[in-house]
């Protein structure tokens, strides 16, 4: 059977199954097995695409090239590790009485459906379907964020829904404008929203329409990426949802939204013949980075703080893609990978830590390294990695972004460094006392899953020192595709 079909079908079917049978004892295992299946299918697909080049599926509705197959692989991988992590995590939540069985069922089914929507958004060739998948991803995660049904989680979910709903409505307007522009070139063949067709005629698209369209798309999908000042939903949703959800939100959903912007940027660049789209993205990126950095220093809730850190990194990545060019795009892609892996690892560690201590307030969490050295070290190393300390891979990409900026946009470098410096001081100053120090330990009913944390960190560490040649080739090709 086709790897691609498998990859989409497994989460969809298992999501449906879990909706029905989610309260059975084997349900958590099904969640993991389904994620594993998705991951294996994604690996198969990746191998296939890397070996044979881009391919279509379902007519021309789906298109897998080296750019999105990379996101697909990443998404499936983090999806797998998160499902592994969420097994004991959710069991502990249930044991603490924070979640009932129906909620657990909802969690698992929505998790699979969420994976499905993301994979669909990544692989679709149709920009309209992309929008639909993004909206669907919002809907599934709204349910996940409000899983605890506490006032705070409801508030967060409400804000998430409204803000992202409105945001994504702008993206739809942008898509319509894009279609409008495309139709004039491609005619009413129904192919006018297919990216592969659009990219062939991108030079003929009407620049004014494309500029307007890109504004709407950037604001729309940018809301989901968390670009300031459209980011306001993000810290709430991350802080109040269950930690596995925070991990996939930060690690995957933001990437997918950014991916959508990137696809559109290629078209806008082709049409406008100037750095218009790039400049907009650089502006947004820098502003986001700076704002998020200053947000960090006043955080009290650990998950909220790391949510802001995600905003910060998304700003940096947006800036990198805004700069454009092979090196910056490469660096951006690399940074996205590193951020996904590292941030989800951090959320895993944070999840266990908050469960152990029963609070998300950083002031009340102390001495993790005593409670459980692996969690403590995981959080510490993850934090250092996300802050861009070598030899972790985040540094590699930051190094490339910074050096590229120094070469082409020297004025931006001080801003970048100021933001990175402030972020370092804020985050590290708060995490260090959490990890170190004295505490009273408490045992959890279910042993935490630490493997994902160190698996992620191990990969990040390896990529900081050595990026295998095939990965480099793959990244290069993807970067070239972005122009």
């Amino acid at each position, binding site marked *: 059977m086709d790897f691609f079909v498998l990859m989409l079908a497994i989460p969809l079917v298992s999501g449906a199954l879990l909706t029905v049978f989610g309260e059975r004892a084997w349900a958590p295992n099904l969640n993991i097995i389904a994620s594993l299946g998705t991951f294996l299918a994604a690996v198969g697909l990746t191998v296939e695409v890397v070996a044979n080049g881009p391919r279509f599926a379902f007519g021309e509705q789906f298109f897998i090239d080296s750019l999105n197959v990379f996101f697909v692989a990443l998404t499936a991988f983090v999806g797998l590790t998160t499902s592994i992590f969420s097994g004991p995590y959710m069991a502990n939540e249930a044991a603490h009485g924070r979640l009932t069985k129906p909620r657990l069922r909802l969690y698992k089914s929505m998790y699979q459906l969420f994976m499905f929507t993301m994979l669909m958004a990544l692989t679709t060739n149709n920009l309209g379907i992309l929008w639909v998948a993004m909206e669907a991803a919002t809907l599934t995660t709204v349910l996940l964020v409000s899983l605890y049904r506490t006032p705070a989680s409801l508030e967060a979910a409400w*804000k998430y829904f409204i803000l992202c709903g409105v945001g994504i409505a702008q993206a739809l307007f942008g898509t319509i404008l894009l279609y409008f522009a495309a139709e004039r070139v491609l005619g009413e063949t129904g192919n006018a929203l297919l990216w592969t067709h659009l990219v062939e005629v991108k030079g003929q698209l009407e620049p004014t329409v494309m500029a307007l369209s890109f504004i709407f798309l950037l604001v729309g999908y940018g809301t989901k990426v968390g670009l300031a000042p459209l980011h306001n939903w993000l810290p709430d949703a991350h802080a109040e949802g269950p930690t596995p959800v925070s991990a996939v939100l930060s690690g995957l959903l933001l990437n997918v939204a950014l991916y959508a912007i990137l696809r559109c940027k290629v078209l806008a660049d082709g049409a406008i013949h100037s750095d218009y789209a790039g400049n907009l993205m650089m502006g947004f990126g820098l502003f986001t980075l700076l704002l998020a950095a200053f947000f960090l220093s006043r955080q009290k809730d650990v998950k909220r703080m790391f949510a802001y850190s995600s905003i910060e990194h998304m700003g940096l990545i947006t800036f990198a893609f805004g700069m454009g060019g092979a090196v910056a795009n490469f660096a951006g892609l690399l940074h996205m990978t590193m951020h996904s892996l590292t941030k989800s690892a951090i959320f895993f560690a944070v999840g266990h830590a908050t469960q152990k201590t029963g609070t998300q307030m950083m002031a009340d969490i102390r001495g993790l390294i005593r409670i459980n050295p692996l969690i403590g070290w995981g959080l510490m190393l993850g934090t250092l990695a996300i802050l861009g300390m070598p030899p972790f891979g985040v540094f590699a990409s930051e190094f490339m972004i910074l*050096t590229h900026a120094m070469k082409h946009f020297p004025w931006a470098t001080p801003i970048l460094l100021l933001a990175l410096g402030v972020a370092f001081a804020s985050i590290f100053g708060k995490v260090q006392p959490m990890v170190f120090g004295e505490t009273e330990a408490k045992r959890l009913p279910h042993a935490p899953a630490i493997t994902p944390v160190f698996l992620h960190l191990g990969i990040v560490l390896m990529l900081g020192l050595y990026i295998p040649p095939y990965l480099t080739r793959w990244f290069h090709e993807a970067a070239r595709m972005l122009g």
Partner: protein
Amino acid sequence: MLSLLPIDTLLIAACAWLAIGLLGLVAPRNLRFISKTLFPLGALVGVLVGLVALGSLGEAPETAVLVIGLPDLPFHLRLDNLSAVFALLLGFVPVGISIYAAGYFRKGEGTAPGVLCLEYHVFLASMLLVLLADDAYAFMVAWESMALSSFFLVTTNHQHAEIRRAGFLYLLIAHVGAISILLSFGVMTGGAGDYTFAGMRAQQLSPFWASAAFLLALVGFGAKAGLVPLHVWLPEAHPAAPSPVSAMMSGVMLKTAIYGLLRVSFDLVGTPLWWWGVVALAVGLVTALFGVLYSTVQSDMKRLLAYSSIENIGLIAVGIGLTLIFHAYRMEALAALAMTAVLYHCLAHSAFKSLLFLCTGSVLHATKERSLGKLGGLIHRMPWVAWLALAGVIASVGLPPLSGFVSEWMLLQAFLFSPGLPHPWLNMVVPVAAALVVFVAALAGFAMVKFYGIIFLGQMREPGLKDAHDAGPWEKFGLAWLALITLLLGILPSTVISRIDAATRQLLGTGLADKLHEQGWWMLAPMSPERASYEPLIFLVTIAATLLLGRWLVRHLYHGRVRRTAAWDCGYWFQGPRAQDTAEGFSQPIRRIFEPMFRMERHFPTARDSKPYYSVKVEDHFWHWLYLPVARLVNAISGLVTAVQGGRIAIYLLYSFITLLILLLVARP
């Protein structure tokens, strides 16, 4: 035929250190295995590094490219004479520290021994990589790994809040410095995008950008070295760390920063401008003066040493500044003299400061006390440590015939022969700088007498000190090793200089060795014997001969009778340990003379106090003038920024609405 180049051997050594560290994780709680097997193994690797470095001095540079690194920028490595000098230091000094550490670490103190072993050896390996790195990425990776591993070492006893705070401050400033270094590298590539050092050398920078690169490097490496005003982490982190770690940081790690500064200013950035030297000189002088003044008023023995390290780094920076000035004016002979002084002081400081820090470690283990006010009289209980510490003290004060004097002597010589600079203004300022250097050296004497006298001499200030015990055999060996290095560096300057001269020649084109070879190995006369000379061995022999002869004569002509009795009590019955000077009391004259330099909080007893007491707290001005304002500023900005997140959804929607409107109205292509 398998032939290993020195650079390969060093790389293997770095890997060996990493492997030893990882072995520590195999049995993280097995203290015996780790301390008695792994640490000595690490010391052996250190010997290897030192010998290889020694052997490669004077040879042509060797390069290597590894497979790891960035796709377009794999790790480039290069072993040249400058790296070799510092690798020499990195090889031999840690031998003493590692052996000492084998006997030092105990059960149940902070981090598990296995983790500690990993951090320690990663620290060593990353320092070696810093020295070998030949491109910006490899350098930064090694540099930050060094910062990171040392941070974890500093926070070994992380249950104390002030140690955590110290660690945080340390890593923060290290990170800021690293950012600055990265920027400096960026400037030096000159937009060519070639981040190998070879590429930087090939760039011809305009004076403006060259200056920018130099100043950024000065800030970056200064943050690591502890140049004022980026020194604040140093007196916090050194006392916080376990003593072998403090020794390693102060003795070895600070030198990597000096290495970096030398590498950038003399190798990468191109021809220096004269005023760079003035900047370095001024910063160095302020640092040295600041360090020594604060070191005299400290009451914590490790803080005292930490400030003393700041002072020494300041002196090294003065030397670098002087070298830069001479080099810029093409007075290469004097530049070579100053450069040799810098390199020599790096070697010397590395050995004697490690020695002193290790001595504090032994004192700490024996007494559980770090505060000078609770020590005293330890020479009776710990004679080994006391006498070896004395060697460190004398070297650190810069007195003949030990190592510190040699470098200070050469530095002063360089100063003295500076007239003739083509810049009249400089001509005036440089000798005054020399006066300040002398002043610093003399004040260092005050600090060190205080350090030694209050810890080891006098009566025991606390009854618990009676149970103090001397260091164990491992520790003794470590101390003796470092003391031996100090002594050898002190009495064989000519031999050492003719080895390290290769680095000077590499950077400046000329060296001292030719002149030295004309004279005997026992004599150090960098210009000519008529102008200045110093023969430490003869010096030592003369004093020793007089001493022994005098003693023999006195015994022979008179007698050797000794009676023991109580000390003279001046007619006052109470002559307990409390009657001695306290640490605060000892430094009272300094506080009084240099009052404006300190930020002091004093409490004086009054006649009506039911429990009269005196207390004095000396704080750093920079903390209040520079760091707190910056922190407050960041906090204020962040207060403004967080107002954005007010919780009201309507406002959030308004943001996105306004963003959209602005983009539609303003940002049109």
